[in-house]
């Protein structure tokens, strides 16, 4: 139904409409300095002085609270400090502060580009307009749903970790323990900020897929047009696609499509080349649809709406090259524009992403290591007390890693979607084989080969799954090394209980803990030399 309403609507609805709740929440906790009522009235992000001041105030308050927290819970570390060297304690503090560093990065970056974010969404809106002119309309309603889902999951995770830790591991007899709530602030704020990034990225991905869907639709309609034009002798020359399949298998497929219509966006190429009149209309819409519990009815609508539309509108489209050239040119320009937006967005969020990745790596390793320590009944820093309970550890780890992995996965998917466009373009060329069109298609696909949307953290490493591979390797090897150090330390303890060995233990535990801050590089040499693809 999104198609209908927007086909009546003069302009497309701006993306930011969907961001209402997210904007309010992040405004309240002080992530975005932009102006509130302007947003409410005109859905634009504009910089405002008051917001900036408010944000700075919140930042200062958070830092103060966090320090108080660390101080008040630091007493329990005194024993630790006595048993360990100064270095260990310093590094423990570093580990505790990295969350704060991350939060600070997020807020300061948000301050820095408060002007440019609005511009970004302006550009996205413009892209939507151009896409609308090309008769491919995308509904942003799914994005609102995603935002709500993400917010819900964030709050669930945070609360579960916080409360579980508070109830089980903090003695809530003295009032000081209320401060423990503060320990959740940095991750929460960071998650909110990342939700902005992720959702915008997802919006870009949808744009790409809309472009692909339009191209696929061109193909499908043209095929149908050709079939409808001359049915039988066409079948001899190039056998039409559904003549080859036996009835029951076909019915099987029909059944599959009806049932799993919306289930995934991967295989729409076949969906459209499947060329039953109903199916290949389902396909593009399902393509432009997200894969998360979207109701199927719009696709059905499209299914029974499109045939006459296609026969009236599209039938001649791939036929005469001059008309289609215009369309393809525009689509390619939009594609390039989206790539540019993606680059700009990546640049805006590069430092937060870098800090997030470092944070994820460090915390993941640290949490696992402390879990090991807790199973060995050794003392661990008090801010990592959640590691004492395996269940809470699992939740926290899944929360932290979920953030990082989801971002990486999404950016990977986005670049895949942008690469799909070339394939669909070639489909167009192949379906209507026509010299003029071939020239156009060659030209444009050369252009598309040079459109690159690749997400990287400050150019240090690209955000794709290869990195994930390297990171997992790094985490494993560092974990093993740490446990090794720990074992050595324990043995040294058992070996001699004299003072000298105490020093040595301190040194060794120091060594063990020292590995965190030096292991903050994502993949170590083992992974760079051995695990990364050679050549």
């Amino acid at each position: 139904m999104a198609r209908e309403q927007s086909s009546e609507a003069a302009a497309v609805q701006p993306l930011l409409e969907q961001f209402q709740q997210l904007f309010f929440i992040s405004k309240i906790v002080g992530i975005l300095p932009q102006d509130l009522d302007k947003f409410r009235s005109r859905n634009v992000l504009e910089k405002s002085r008051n917001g900036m001041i408010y944000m700075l105030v919140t930042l200062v308050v958070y830092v103060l609270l966090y320090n108080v927290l660390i101080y008040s819970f630091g007493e329990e570390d005194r024993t630790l400090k006595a048993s360990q060297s100064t270095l260990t304690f310093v590094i423990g503090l570093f580990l505790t502060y990295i969350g704060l560093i991350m939060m600070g990065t997020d807020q300061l970056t948000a301050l820095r580009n408060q002007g440019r974010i609005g511009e970004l969404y302006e550009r996205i809106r413009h892209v939507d307009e151009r896409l609308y002119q090309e008769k491919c309309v995308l509904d942003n309603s799914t994005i609102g749903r995603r935002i709500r889902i993400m917010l819900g999951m964030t709050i669930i995770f945070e609360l579960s970790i916080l409360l579980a830790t508070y109830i089980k591991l903090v003695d809530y007899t003295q009032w000081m323990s209320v401060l423990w709530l503060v320990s959740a602030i940095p991750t929460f704020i960071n998650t909110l900020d990342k939700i902005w990034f992720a959702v915008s990225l997802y919006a870009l991905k949808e744009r790409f897929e809309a472009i692909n869907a339009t191209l696929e639709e061109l193909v499908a309609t043209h095929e149908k047009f050709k079939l409808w034009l001359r049915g039988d002798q066409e079948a001899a020359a190039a056998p039409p696609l559904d003549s080859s399949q036996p009835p029951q298998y076909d019915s099987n497929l029909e059944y599959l499509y009806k049932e799993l219509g919306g289930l995934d966006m991967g295989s729409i190429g076949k969906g459209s080349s499947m060329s039953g009149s109903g199916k290949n209309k389902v396909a593009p819409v399902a393509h432009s649809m997200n894969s998360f519990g979207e109701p199927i009815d719009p696709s059905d609508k499209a299914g029974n709406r499109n045939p006459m539309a296609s026969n009236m509108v599209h039938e001649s489209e791939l036929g005469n090259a001059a008309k289609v050239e215009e369309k393809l040119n525009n689509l390619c320009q939009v594609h390039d524009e989206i790539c540019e937006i993606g680059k700009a967005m990546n640049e805006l969020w590069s430092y937060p992403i870098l800090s997030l990745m470092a944070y994820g790596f460090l915390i993941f390793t640290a949490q696992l290591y402390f879990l090991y320590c807790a199973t060995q009944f050794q003392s661990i820093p008090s801010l990592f007390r959640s590691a004492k309970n395996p269940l809470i550890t699992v939740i926290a780890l899944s929360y932290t890693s979920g953030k990082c992995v989801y971002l990486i996965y999404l950016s990977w998917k986005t670049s895949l979607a942008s690469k799909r466009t070339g394939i669909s373009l070639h489909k167009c060329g192949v379906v209507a084989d026509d010299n003029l069109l071939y020239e156009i298609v060659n030209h444009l696909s050369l252009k598309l080969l040079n459109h690159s949307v690749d997400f990287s953290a400050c150019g240090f490493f690209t955000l794709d799954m290869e990195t994930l591979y390297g990171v997992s390797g790094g985490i494993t090897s560092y974990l093993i090394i740490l446990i090794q150090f720990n074992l050595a330390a324990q043995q040294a303890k058992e070996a001699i209980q004299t003072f000298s060995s105490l020093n040595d233990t301190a040194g060794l535990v120091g060594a063990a803990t020292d590995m965190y801050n030096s292991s903050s590089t994502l993949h170590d040499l083992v992974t760079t030399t051995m695990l990364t693809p050679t050549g």
Partner: protein
Amino acid sequence: MSPNTWVIEMPSQKSCSHPYPRRISPYRTPSLNRDAFTRDSPAAATSGPSTRSHNHPVFEDIRTILSVLKASGLMPIYEQVSNYEVGPPTKTNEFYSFFVRGVVHALTIFNVYSLFTPISAQLFYSYRETDNVNQWIELLLCILTYTLTVFVCARNTKSMLRIMNEILQLDEEVRKQFGANLNQNFGFSVKFLVGIAACQTYIIVLKIYAVDGVITPPSYILLAFYAVQNGLTATYIVFASALLRIVYIRFHFINQLLNGYTYGQQQKRKGGGGGGRRHRGNGQHHPTPNPAIMEHFPEDSLFIYRMHNKLLRIYKGINDCCNLILVSFLGYSFYTVTTNCYNLFVQITAKGMVSPNILQWCFAWLCLHVSLLALLSRSCGLTTREANATSQILSRVYASSREYQNIIDKFLTKSIKQEVQFTAYGFFAIDNSTLFKIFSAVTTYLVILIQFKQLEDSKVEDPEPDQT
């Protein structure tokens, strides 16, 4: 790399064979002024005086570092033939730099001798055995790097001059075409020079304070020469990155020129409202130049392609010149960073005896090398990205007529999967990620070193075979 340099050498005569005036047609003059104006604005944004007298000395924006290198015999003391050409050095200058190199090698031999004899023993007194070995290896590496630098520079004198000449010639063409002189003040080079000098002197002073007792002259010489070697190697690295920066500016210039033809700019020219707004954030952080008129596209594109080829050639030339030096320097600084981190670690973890002297020493070394590595990788990354960005920008040019499209295709076809990269002798590419990899490597080796330290400690404390 040498066997292939000739391949890209020959087109130079070819491009010389083009009569330049042909490219400047009369109807082109207004646009020429326009271009001159718009081109100067980004330059002026960064550089101070954009109105520069026409007989300025070449490369005056990096003249300080050049003079240092000339004085130390790393660079030939060339003669400035014309405004756009440098000639080979005169006999006396040549002899001078030759003499300097001779002195350097003599000193090097002396140093190696004194390193292997107990003369310099008093310089390594303070640490344990392994640390002394580390110091030794560090010194040897430094000497090796510098000697290699001198040799390579002596061998590459001609190619260095050739590269400079090509850069100048390219500038001349750009000026003839657009009346723009691409200059930028390379303040960072001077800053780095000062920083290096300060750091070295500081380190020497620390060392001298660290040594107790009266210091014999040989060790004075050793220290002084050690400092000089470090400084000059660092200076050469700064020089290489400055050269890369120069190339980067040229690449950026032609990319800007090309950017004038992209569809966004064209729409802006036609007064299409959205063009400007959509195009402002387009990755360039300066006022984008006025859109060019599409009619000029063919000749401009030819010019741009030629410039691009030449720039690629210069880029490869620089790469070939500094290959070995870069490799050895990276190895050296990797080793230095590792050992210093290790020393810091030992100092901090060892209880009680934290000597501020060694801490300062380590920090000085770390600052020096990390900053140099950062500078090098950053400039390499910038230049490489700009060189590869040309095809992306060109893919944004949408031309209506067929032959324009063919012009575009011609370039794009040949730049599929053809990314250039600045490699260290083909061993690994140098760009932003290099810094990252080096640090991860440092981490790993640190781990291994610490494990060795543990082993030693466990040996000394409990020799009973329970550990084995």
